[in-house]
């Protein structure tokens, strides 16, 4: 059984794809009216723990690229936290990190261009800007949800914990596919 793949099927008629990255709807986005709120960021968080153990990952759907991006992003988020970081500090840190880290796939200094098979020579400036905006929103949503999960008492899922759960922190040194963003 290989690593887990994204279950979001990208239909190019409804979802815009820029630089091979699909701009899948985020549930918190008010403009999207969808029945259930399970979106790609939830999936990233659900698959993160299982997939970080894998060193190989084959991209099947184009949503797998967003999944990969998300998992690697969580990796770098966790490495910013320590076993004693308080929740407020974590929220601040991760929000700033989400705003700051802004290398867009397709730009020359994005490390995964080869793996994502991105050909950005025909991408317009406007599209680049749109992708940048989308990924920033994606990162902020992801970071918020991550903090909620990391600061949950592992013995009782309804309680909040003071320090990050060690059952999340144990993954901070792991590297999905030995790569980082």
């Amino acid at each position, binding site marked *: *059984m*290989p*690593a*887990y793949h994204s279950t979001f099927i990208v239909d190019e008629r409804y979802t815009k794809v820029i630089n091979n990255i699909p701009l899948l709807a985020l549930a918190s986005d008010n403009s999207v009216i969808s029945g259930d709120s399970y979106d790609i960021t939830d999936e990233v968080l*659900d*698959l993160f*723990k*299982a997939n970080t*153990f*894998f*060193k*190989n990952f084959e991209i099947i759907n184009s949503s797998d690229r967003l999944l990969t991006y998300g998992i690697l992003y969580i990796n770098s988020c966790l490495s910013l936290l320590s*076993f004693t970081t308080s929740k407020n500090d974590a929220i601040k840190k991760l929000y700033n990190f989400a705003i700051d880290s802004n290398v867009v796939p397709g730009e020359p200094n994005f490390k995964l261009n080869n793996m994502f098979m991105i050909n950005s020579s025909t991408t317009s400036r406007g599209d680049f800007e749109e992708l940048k905006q989308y990924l920033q929103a994606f990162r902020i949503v992801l970071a918020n949800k991550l903090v909620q*999960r990391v600061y*949950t*008492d*592992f*013995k*009782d*899922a309804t309680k909040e914990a003071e320090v990050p759960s*060690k*059952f999340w*922190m*144990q*993954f*901070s*040194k*792991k590297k999905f596919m030995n790569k980082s963003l």
Partner: protein
Amino acid sequence: MSYLNNPAVVMDNGTGLTKLGFAGNDSPSYVFPTAIATTTGKSTGSSTRTVDQSFSNLSVSDSNTSKAYLTSNSTSATNFNSSATHSSAILSNHLSGKRGTEDLDFYIGNEALLASQSQQYSLSYPIRHGQVENWDHMERFWENSIFKYLRTEPEDHCFLLTEPPLNPPENREQVAEIFFESFNCAGLYIAVQAVLALAASWSSPKVTDRSLTGTVIDSGDGVTHVIPVAEGYVIGSAIKNVPIAGRDITNFIQQILRDRGELDASLKTAEAIKQEFCYVAPDIVKEFNKYDRDGSKFAQYIVENQDKTSRKLIDVGYERFLAPEIFFNPEICSSDFLTPLPTLVDETIRSCPIDVRKGLYNNIVLSGGSTMFKDFGRRLQRDVKTIVNKRIEHSEQLSGTKSTGIDVQVVSHRRQRNAVWFGGSLLAQTGEFKSYCHTKADYDEYGPEIVRTFSLFNVAQ
């Protein structure tokens, strides 16, 4: 002919552990490491020896904690690594002061592990990768096994010994020489471990016909073998090995404990967690979610120090299902070996002659301590079945005909841990066993080459 009424002695010498006992019993009388401690020093001055000895007594009591994990995998009913007083008694008793008796000065099993902590003894494992490497040590190991542990007279008993698949016949001859000439045993039978593991599976209610056809998955501490057996004969060309076994699982757990910053991440703790808490999950993503929703899935393990003055609480989490998962997804812990066990089982069976394949799929038998995880057999059966069904579907599409299907069945049973020994015990208690043994008289008549062949047990009774 007194040996005819005595139960046969069953000895299974594995790379890691040796199992000793009498045929007809449910479990071996002794299980201890296949280790021997022999004296290192040639005769030295007596003054240095006394210093050495007092030092070694000290070091034993100190390092008991650190070495204890070595002996902890012994599942013997009679434990030899219990107390420090015992160990000092061993060491003060040594014979090296008496000239000319150096070759009698050795210990085996758990006593060897203790003795090796002193400067005077060096520890060695006479069996490597299932095969005997050091015959002199092995002979002494057997000698102690028979006289000190089992306390029997070899001339009154038949012996059933085990060998790994593909053992060269020269090794069998060597064994015969030792057993008939040094020990003067009444009769000898050497059986292949995989065949005995198949026989052990007869104790499972799932098994209806007692056939000696099946695929044996033997996973111990060092390596995992997949061995196809057809009608009692091992198909040597199709045997496959997986470099993942008990030790790797323990190391993987230790790594997780370290990553999480647990208070105690020793190998001993990791081993205890492996034996006590681990199980196989059907799907790891679902299992992760279960843990995140329900905190009761997390367990706690208590580490106490030697004199029970301090306790440490270790939280046990995802490693409960992640650790055995490395059999099914080797990628998560190793970077050079990537084939999952179910795929390997399928490949092994497909490289066997076509007329036995159905029987091999039908009877996949587990053996060895690392197959003891809960639901290991179920997961293996499901995964092999998926692979086989996919292939059948594909070939049905191509040929346009309907296949009769293949029944994949994995047999797990309660005797899995010492399956090889138990199978030996089962076969050696039958009335016919003694007629299959080569006797001392045969040996004297024909020489060691008689042990190159043994008649198979007639199982179609």
